C-alpha cells in the first residue's frame, strides 16, 4: 500500500484513540452518561434494540463491525479471513458532506498456512464512500462491503487478494459482558458489545495462486464505546473460538503496565445462551514466542477456564499473520487442541 503512511497512522490513531490512548479522567463522569469531551458513554443495563443497534452509534467516539472466519478449502487446507470496518468520530458535533466528523477505516485480510495478505482503506463520512445502514443492513467502505446481517454477502478486494463470501447466521446475536455491557478495567471502563458467533460462511478466496473455494465458521463482533481502556493498559490478547462441541468461547486479556493482566470470558452454549465470567477466571498464558517483524509475539497459548473443565492449547495457523497496516497488529486463525478441539481467531495488539 502506498497510502500516505503518516497520515494513515494519524488516522488510525484517531480511530483507535478511544481504545488505546484515553485520558484517565473520564471514569469520574461515567455515571453521568457523557464524557467530559462531549461523547456518549456506555450505560449498564441498556437493552440492545435490533436492527437499529446493527447500525452506527454516532454519538460514541468509536465503533466496529469485526468479522473473522475460519475456512477450509476442498483440499483440506485451512484459511482465515478478516473483514473489519472501524468508525470514529473526530468530534461530538457533526457536519454535512466533507464536514462530517465521521471517519472510517477498513481492514481486510486472508491468512493461509504459508502466507498472509492484508489491506486497509480509509474514508470520511458524509459523502457516502463509507458507512453503515441498519435496515436493510449494509456496511461498506469503497467496494468492500457486508450486505445483510442475518444472511448476506461479504466482499473485499486488494492489490494481491480478494474474496467474495456468503454468510448465514445459524443462531442468535449474543450479548457480551453484563447484558452487553462489557467492562474493560478495574476502574470501570466499558463498551457496548455483542457478537454473532454462529455464521456459516462459504465462498471464494482469490489469491495470487488462483481462486480457492472455501467454507467454514464466521464470528461477528459489534462493539462501541467512547473510552474503553485506561491509560496504563498497553494492549490486549483476544480470542474467539469455535469448539467442535458447538460451544463458543470469547476471551480476552488486557495487559497493564501497572496491574496484573485483566482477563474476561464469555462461554456461549450452542443455543446462544451466554455465561459471562468475572475478571480473572479465565487464564491465558503464552507458551511459544515467534519473532514477527522484529517483535516477540506469543503465537501459542494455554487457556484454562476451570468452571468448564477447559484446558486447551491455542496455536496460530500461520505465526506470521501480521497486519501490515498503518496501526499494525497480529491477527490470524488458530487451532484449538486439548480438553476441547476446534478453531478460532486470535488478535494481539500493543506488541511494539
Amino acid at each position, binding site marked *: 500500500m502506498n497510502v*500516505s503512511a503518516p*497520515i494513515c*497512522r494519524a488516522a488510525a490513531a*484517531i480511530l483507535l484513540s478511544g481504545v488505546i490512548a484515553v485520558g484517565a479522567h473520564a471514569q469520574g463522569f461515567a455515571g453521568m452518561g457523557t464524557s467530559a469531551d462531549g461523547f456518549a458513554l456506555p450505560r449498564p443495563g441498556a437493552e440492545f434494540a435490533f436492527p437499529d443497534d446493527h447500525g452506527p452509534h454516532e454519538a460514541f467516539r468509536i465503533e466496529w463491525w469485526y468479522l473473522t472466519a475460519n475456512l477450509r478449502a476442498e483440499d483440506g487446507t485451512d484459511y482465515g479471513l478478516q473483514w473489519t470496518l472501524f468508525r470514529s468520530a473526530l468530534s461530538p458535533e457533526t457536519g454535512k458532506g466533507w464536514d462530517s466528523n465521521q471517519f472510517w477505516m477498513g481492514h481486510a485480510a486472508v491468512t493461509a498456512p504459508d502466507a498472509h495478505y492484508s489491506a486497509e482503506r480509509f474514508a470520511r463520512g458524509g459523502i457516502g464512500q463509507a458507512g453503515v445502514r441498519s435496515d436493510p443492513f449494509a456496511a461498506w467502505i469503497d467496494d468492500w462491503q457486508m450486505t445483510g446481517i442475518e444472511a448476506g454477502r461479504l466482499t473485499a478486494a486488494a*492489490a494481491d487478494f480478494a474474496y467474495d463470501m456468503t454468510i448465514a447466521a445459524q443462531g442468535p446475536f449474543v450479548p457480551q459482558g453484563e447484558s452487553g455491557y462489557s467492562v474493560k478495567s478495574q476502574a470501570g471502563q466499558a463498551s457496548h458489545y455483542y457478537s454473532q458467533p454462529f455464521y456459516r460462511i462459504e465462498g471464494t478466496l482469490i489469491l495470487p495462486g488462483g481462486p480457492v473455494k472455501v467454507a467454514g465458521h464466521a464470528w461477528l463482533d459489534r462493539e462501541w464505546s467512547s473510552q474503553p481502556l485506561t491509560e496504563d493498559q498497553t494492549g490486549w490478547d483476544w480470542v474467539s473460538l469455535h469448539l467442535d462441541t458447538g460451544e463458543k468461547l470469547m476471551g480476552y486479556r488486557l495487559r497493564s503496565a501497572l496491574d496484573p493482566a485483566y482477563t474476561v470470558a464469555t462461554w456461549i452454549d450452542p443455543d446462544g445462551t451466554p455465561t459471562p465470567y468475572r475478571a480473572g477466571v479465565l487464564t491465558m498464558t503464552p507458551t511459544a514466542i515467534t519473532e514477527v517483524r522484529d517483535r516477540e509475539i506469543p503465537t501459542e497459548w494455554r487457556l484454562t477456564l476451570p468452571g468448564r473443565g477447559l484446558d486447551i492449547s491455542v496455536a496460530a495457523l500461520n505465526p506470521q499473520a501480521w497486519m501490515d497496516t498503518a496501526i499494525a497488529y497480529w491477527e490470524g486463525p488458530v487451532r484449538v487442541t486439548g480438553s476441547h478441539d476446534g478453531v478460532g481467531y486470535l488478535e494481539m495488539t500493543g506488541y511494539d
Partner: protein
Amino acid sequence: MWIAGLSALLSHWRRKPLQLATLILGLALATALWSGVQAINAEARASYEAAASAVGETRYAQLLPREGAIAQARYVELRRRGLQVSPVVEGRITVAGDSWRLIGIDPLTVPADVAPSGADIAGDLTGFLTAPGQIYAPPAALDGLAEGLDQQILPAEGLAPGVLFTDIGVAQRLLDLEGGISRLILRTDQPLTLPELETLAPELDLRRPEAGSDVARLTDSFHLNLTAFGLLSFAVGLFIVHGTIGLAFEQRRPMVRTLRALGLPLTTLITLLCLELLILAVIAGALGMALGYSIAAALLPDVAATLRGLYGAEIDGSLSLRPAWWLAGMAIAVSGTGLAATGAVWRVARLPILVPAQPRAWARASEDRLVLLGGGAAALAATSLAAGLFGQGLIAGFVLLGAALLSAALALPVLLHAILGLAARTAKSPVAEWFWADTRQQLPGLSLALMALLLALSANIGVGTMVASFRLTFTGWLDQRLASELYVTARTQAEAPALRAFLQERADAVLPIWNIDARVAGLPAEIYGVADHPTYRDNWPMLDALPDVWDRVIAGEAILINEQLARRESLGPGDTLALPGDWQSAIGGIYSDYGNPAGQVLVGLPHLVARFPGIEKRRFGVRIAPEAVPALARDLREGFGLPAQNMIDQASLKAFSLQIFERTFTVTAALNVLTLSVAGFAILTSLLTLAAVRQPQLAPVWALGLTRRRLAALELARALLLAVLTIVAAIPVGLLLSWVLLAVINVEAFGWRLPMFLFPRDWLLLGLLSLLAAALAALWPARRLARTPPADLLKIFANER
C-alpha cells in the same frame, strides 16, 4: 621541469595582460549568457515541477473530465466499484487582491507523495479535517493571507509560488464548487478484481503521468527559444576564445620551440598547455557563472511576468542556486575552451622543432582554407535545407536556423575574399593595390571576429523583424478581435440576467461571452459561444473559411477553431472535430488567435447553451458609441452597483494585452543587445591582437614612405570597409532568420504563423550603430600605430629579420 615549464608558459600572459583579459572575458561572457539562460529555465522548470507535484501530477496518472467538473457522487460511485482514486479540487481564488491557485485534496485517500513537503497534515489531521480548517501556503506569503481567510494559515516550503493547499471540503467551499471535483488521481494500488478503466469510467480522460503537466508542455517552446538564444551567445563567445587562444599560441611559437629544444618532452608540453587552459577555463567559468547568475536574476522577473501573462504559469521571481547548474556551467566553460583550443594545441603538437618560429599572424590566406570554409558553408546550407524540407517540430526548426546561420558565417570570408579580389582589379595606384592586397591578407585574422559580427547582426535583424512584424500583426488583430467597447462580468450567475437587461436598455447591443473550459483533442481548450451579430461577421480575424461560414455557425452546422488548434491537429475547413459530450462538428473556418497558448473553439451560442446548460453566463461584451462608454460605466457603478473591477473598457484591455506582449519580448531584446555587445568586443580584440603582430608587415610600407598617420587612416578605413561589407551581408541573413522564426519556429512553438514585414529604417540604424562600434574598435589600434615611435618601427628590421 614541470614547474619551470608551466611558469614559462604562463609568463606569456603576464607580458600580455590584455590578451589574458580578452580570453577570460570572452569565455566568461560566453559562459554567462549560456548559464544565465539555463538558470532561468531551471528556475521555471522547478516551479512547474513544484506546482505540478503539489497535486501529484508528475507521478500519478489522472482522470480528467472532458468538460466542467466530475460530480462528487460519481467519484463515490467509482470508489464503491473499487477504483482507487483520490479527488482533487482546484481553482483560483482572490485573497486581499492577489490571485491564488487553490488545491484541495482528501488526505485519507491521496497517495503519500502528493502533499507538499513541509505540510505536516498527519501531525494535526483533526485540525486539517475539521472546522475552521487549515490552509498551507508558501512561507513568504503567510501574513497577507491570514487577514483574508478564516482558516488557519500554515507554511509549507514545498509549495510552488501562488499555490495554496487545503482540505477538499474547504476548497469546495472557497471555490464555490460544492459537489464538484476537478480531477481524480489514479492510485497505483488497484484491486486485482477491478474492471477495465474504459468500462468503469468511459466519460473520463486518462492522462498518463509521463505526459507531464499542461503548463510544462505549453511552456516548452518558450524555454527552447531561450535556450537557442543562450547557445547563440555561447557560440559568439567561443569565436572570441578561439581567436585569442589561437593568437596566444602563435605568439608563443618561439617559446615552444625553445622549451622543446631545451629538452621538454612533447607530452609534458601538451599536458602543461592543457593544464594552463584548464586553469584559465575554471577562472573564467567561475566569473561567467557569477555574471550569468546576475543576468538571470535581472531577467527573471520579466520572464516570470511573461510566463504568467502568456501561459498562466507561476514561477518564483527569485533565483535559487542549484548545484547541477553550477556543474553544468563549469563543464560548458571547460569544454568550450577545449573546443576552441583543439586546433591550436594540435598545431603545437605537430610543430617541427627546427622550423623558423616566426609569428605569422597565425593563419595564412591560403586558397585551401577558403575551399575548406566554402565546403563547410555548403554542407551546413545543405543540412539547413534538409531540416527545412524534411524536418518536423521545433528541434528541426532550430537545426534549420542554426545551420543556416553557421553556413552564412562560414561563407562570409569566402565572400569577402571574392569581393576584395574584384576590388583589387580596380586599383590604380600602388598604395591602393597594397591596400586591397593587404586587406585580403588580413582577412583570415579578422574573419572570426567578422563572423561573430555577422551572427550577432543577423540575429538582431532577424529577431527585430520578427518582433516588429508580430507587434504590427498583433495590434491589428487586437483591433479586430476586441470589437466591443466595454466588457462586463456579473458578480454572480443570478445577477447576470438583470445586468443584461440593464445593459440592453442603454447599449446598441449586448453580446454574451460565455465559455466552458474543456479538453479538445487531449489538451485544455476553451469553447466559446458566439451570438448572431454583425460584430463578429464584420470583425472576426478569419484566416480561412467556407462560404457563408457565419450562417453555418449560427445554424449549428459548423464551428470555428483557432489557428493553434488547427495547426496542432492538422485540421482545415470541412474537417470534423470531436467536442466533449459526443459532439462531432464540421469545421467551418479558422481564425487567428495570437497570444493564446490553448486551443479555442467557437460555436453558435444557443447550441453551446443547449449542450451545457450549466455554463457560466456572467460575461458580456457591450457595443456602444466609444464616447458613451464612460457614462455607461458610471451608470453601471452607480445605478446598477457593479464594482469597477467587473468591467474593463476596450482601450484598457488593449493596453493590457500589449503590455503582456511587450513583456514577452523584453527578454529577447535584452539577450539581443548582449549578443551584439559580445560581437563588438570580438572585433575590438581581433583588431588589437592583429595590430600587435602586423608591425612587421607595416614597417616596410612605412619605410617606403607612407606616413604613420596615413597608415593609421588606412587601417581605420580597412576596418570600416570590412564592417560595412559584413553589415550588408547580415541583412539578407537576418531576413532569412526572421522568415524562419515567423514561418517555422513560431508555428512550431506557438501554433501561429505571422506575416513578415520589412523595416529598413531599423536596419539602417543598426548598421550605423555597428559601424560606430567597429570604428571605435579600430580607432584604438589605429591611434597606437599613428603614435608608434619611428624607432620601434626601425627595430622591427633589426629584431624580426
